[in-house]
């Protein structure tokens, strides 16, 4: 049915710069050169004004928790050993909302009872392998 490996990013022309940057410890988002809108996921036209002059820009890495869930029974068997694990949606201070995970430090899962909606967080980077580094978020005070 499924392979045992976790589904990791398979970068395309539209996304490879994002994954390149995470390997260097930077979080990128898309910015519209005409109306200034910041958005994710990346796409070649601005979703607000449809401008084609869009480019990657560096995000501050600060944001707050919009939502979080705790997965006890994963849909994909590769995640069974990690369960229970959290997935959070983060509202970056520039505007975009992205999926991620709340950790205490890279590789260290947080006690999920400590996660709250609206909690301020900042990005940290967790190296999965030579290809993939995932942005995670940890609480800030």
């Amino acid at each position, binding site marked *: 049915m499924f392979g045992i490996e976790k589904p*990791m990013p398979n970068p395309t022309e539209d996304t490879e710069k994002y994954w390149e940057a995470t390997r260097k410890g930077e979080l990128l988002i898309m910015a519209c050169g005409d109306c200034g809108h910041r958005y994710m996921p990346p796409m070649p036209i601005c979703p607000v004004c449809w401008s084609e002059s869009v480019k990657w820009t560096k995000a501050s890495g600060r944001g707050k928790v919009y939502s979080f869930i705790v997965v006890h029974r994963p849909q994909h068997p590769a995640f069974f050993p990690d369960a229970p694990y959290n997935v959070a949606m983060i509202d970056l201070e520039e505007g975009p909302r992205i*999926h991620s995970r709340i950790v205490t430090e890279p590789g260290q899962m947080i006690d999920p009872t400590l996660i709250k909606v609206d909690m301020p967080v900042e990005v940290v980077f967790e190296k999965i392998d030579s290809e993939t580094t995932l942005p995670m978020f940890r609480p800030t005070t």
Partner: protein
Amino acid sequence: MTFKNSCAIAGIGLSKFGQRPGTSAMGFLLQACKRAVEDSGIDRNLVDGCLIAMPAVMGEQHGWATRVAAHLGITARLASTMDMGGATPIGAIQTAALYINAGMAKAVLVGFGMQNNPQGVPIAMMGSQFAFPYGDIGAITFMAHVARRQMHELGVTSRQYGHIAAAFREHASRNPEAQKRELFSVDDHQKSKWVVEPLRLFDCCLVTDGGGAVLVTSLEVARDLKNKPVVLSGAGQEHGAEMIFPGKPRQRPPGAYAADAAFEMAGVTRKDVDVAYIYDGFTPLVMHSLEAFGFCKRGEAGAFVESGALGLHGELPTNTHGGLLSEGHMYGVGHVAEAVRQIRGTAGERQIKDAEVVFVNGYGGAPHEAPPTCSFATLILTKDQGSLSRGTTS
């Protein structure tokens, strides 16, 4: 010819369903289509259209609707595979009516077949590279985020979700065909295991192998068949990605337009609805829908379901067959079939007295993407008021 009151559901058919790994998706479809045609009593040679939901679990299936037509031996003037996820059957019923009104088909089968086990067919599991690596996979993680926001913004509680699940299970206990019939209480719901917190096992629909179909004809044709026609009086759709994704700023929740459109077309109000069929893949989707569709004001759905409003004798009897949560995941065709039974007056001990105006919705989307998309399709079904109303449809 306008849409309102021009067409009708003349036949319904559900295949055998449940945990049935031995039957193919096509097998379920053919059985359901045959049963829908037989239920209507129409001469099978008059069936000339097939609108079939894409079997999402199996991935891309080229020419799926045409294969159904070919296997049924139908000379099809119309065959199309459609995809709005779980909103497909309701959306396809609307499409069938448009083709019939355009004179391009006379009797159209709308159906789905679902086999959750691969049976040698590779499963296509697309995914967003921005959500999958974190293990955010499937409709359930999406709905868990929806639930988290309902709890945060509106003060909805897990016990309130339990009231929805327990009400539909009570209905299923009266449905001999339902996959799950054992009663449970709100306390039992609270003891059921976390699947994806804040959702418990009893917040999630069943996994069902099966198929369903309905036959759509003009109202004129339906009147000459053996059952009382169930009239398509109102219809609406809405598609977008704003459930948990910051899209365009909007005044009203996703799904509101789809409901408004149907009520406006039918010329009836929420108060006129005798029975409702709300797509219930997960309990928070019902909570969302009650408010988005205008049955409750924002923030009031929790208290509404606690009051017993969804029960057979409640303010808004809902999913009298048990829904996806307890009858089985019949892709919304189970909802339509029960709506038809109510208007025909054949729902047995689940019958709502004098049911004449019924609301039905389908919901679906691509939760595997970021942003997760959602589609709403709605129908107002009514009892045929007789030939006096014919003049109003031209």
